[in-house]
């Protein structure tokens, strides 16, 4: 009788150790996301975690917070713009590789445009123009990045964190123009009754967001991430500024 009882306990123990414990201790892959938008990070985060419950996504609204947390916690994956990862790779020696790429209108890049009030901007004198931009990296790095894009030595920029703040810069005449992706033009036109004028920039574009995985990401985590991003609803994907996710 005693032996029977011991056997039962042992059996339960083996069942717990062998089957249940691994399930409980299996952690979801963690994704740190930095994609400035008109939506608040906490709102995007709860939306995305409902959409992809098999991964744990944390959204950051500011580059500095994202940078510090990525360096401290080394998440399994990061979801952001290539220029951000390239900067982190150079300055902090991180090596992340693309897992899923964002596509919009069948392209991996999106044109950028200048939006101003009442008059177009003379692109030839861009170095004399004060431009408002959403900060995707630090102020200095953004300055270098844009000077490089516009092929000028120096550029005068004002950085903001939220998309809506770019419009305030225009409203208060703090800048001559704001730099916006083509897909966001309507967002500003709907918000404002100012006479907003577009200056196309044929050679200036940026690469759409990519989901990157760290060098130590396990194969099963990569699989879980690919699946979670693959089955996202179109409406939710659009909120992240892309039409679909594609495996490179």
């Amino acid at each position: 009788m005693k032996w029977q009882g011991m056997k039962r306990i042992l059996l339960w123990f083996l069942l717990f150790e062998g089957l249940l414990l691994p399930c409980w201790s299996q952690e979801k892959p963690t994704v740190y996301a930095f994609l400035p938008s008109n939506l608040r990070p906490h709102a995007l985060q709860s939306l995305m975690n409902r959409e992809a419950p098999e991964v744990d996504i944390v959204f950051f609204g500011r580059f500095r917070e994202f940078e510090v947390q990525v360096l401290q916690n080394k998440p399994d994956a990061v979801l952001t713009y290539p220029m951000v990862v390239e900067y982190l790779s150079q300055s902090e020696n991180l090596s992340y590789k693309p897992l899923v790429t964002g596509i919009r209108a069948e392209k991996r890049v999106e044109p950028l445009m200048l939006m101003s009030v009442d008059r177009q901007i003379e692109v030839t004198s861009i170095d004399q123009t004060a431009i408002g931009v959403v900060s995707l990296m630090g102020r200095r790095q953004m300055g270098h990045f844009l000077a490089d894009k516009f092929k000028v030595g120096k550029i005068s920029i004002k950085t903001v964190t939220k998309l809506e703040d770019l419009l305030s810069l225009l409203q208060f005449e703090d800048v001559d123009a704001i730099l916006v992706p083509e897909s966001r033009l309507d967002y500003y036109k709907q918000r404002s009754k100012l006479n907003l004028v577009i200056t196309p920039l044929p050679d200036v574009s940026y690469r759409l967001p990519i989901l990157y995985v760290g060098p130590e990401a396990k194969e099963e985590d990569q699989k879980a991430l690919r699946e979670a991003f693959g089955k996202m609803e179109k409406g939710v994907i659009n909120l992240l500024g892309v039409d679909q996710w594609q495996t490179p």
Partner: protein
Amino acid sequence: MKCLSFMHRTTVVLLRMVSGVGLLVGTWLQANTDILVLTPEIPHFQLVVKGLVNELGEDCRIEVVSFDQYSAIERMGWMIEVYDPKLIVLLGNHTLKSYKKLLKIGPASMQLRPVIGLMAVFVDREMRTIRHGAGIHYEIQGLTILTNLRSMTQLPVRRVGVLYRRNLRPFFEDQQSQVRREKIELVGFEIPTKEKIAPKDLRRGLRHLTETEAVDTLWVLNDSELLTPRLIRKAWRPVLKRFQGPVVVGVDQLLRDSVALGHFAVVPDHLELGVQAADLVWEVRRQQWQIPENRFRAPISVEKILNYRNVGYSLLLRNGAELEVDYIVGENF
């Protein structure tokens, strides 16, 4: 005796070393401080400083020193002398007032140092006498408040009623001309400045705006004289009960269920205010530490708070508007 003399000598040597190190540190600080920040240690103020330091820390040498209503002006003078910064950032009305007093008693050369004022009520008025002063208003401008409200609701935001006291007329007129650019009309009602405002004066003003002028929206200014518990109870609430448009306020306390004065609040984003101040510092630095022509700026970034539980009608929020809000009163989403 021998022991005492040895101790005496050791103490003298130690003191000399300490004063030498002090001198060296003083000289090092003098040579190395770009920006001296004087601020009270209050959470909102600390957020502004955090934003400023995060943004400029890599490029400028910044010293942050606590200064509040209990600090002596001499302490401020001593700090400025020790650090000898290229630029001073002053946070709060009290700090600005103390600096102005210091300017009166200090050497004339002090007037030449650039100063940036933040977190002060009507910072432009407060800094009028500081020749090399610039700042960012603490008051969120009507243009920002009403553009944000209009993007949230499908209700019309075209004619907006504002109640103000006579001493705030210049502010009201400024706001009126600003919002015109966004095709919004501000309709004002001036409350005569008295020692104590009677609820009936306020009720008359509110009825004039909501019934005679038939405004579609009300913007409640942050004027503590018009927002006493008595006036809220006896004037604001009875009239607003019948008003069917959005009511926008500038402090979140007015949205709380216990006060329930407004539906939507637009308040400063303090961390971003620090980032904007960093932009201004950057501009001053780029111009060889000279204050730019456009001295006083509007705050750019705000937090949006919503409470539609107290509304007896639909605010007709646009699709997805809740996702753009920072907080919903009574909810933590």
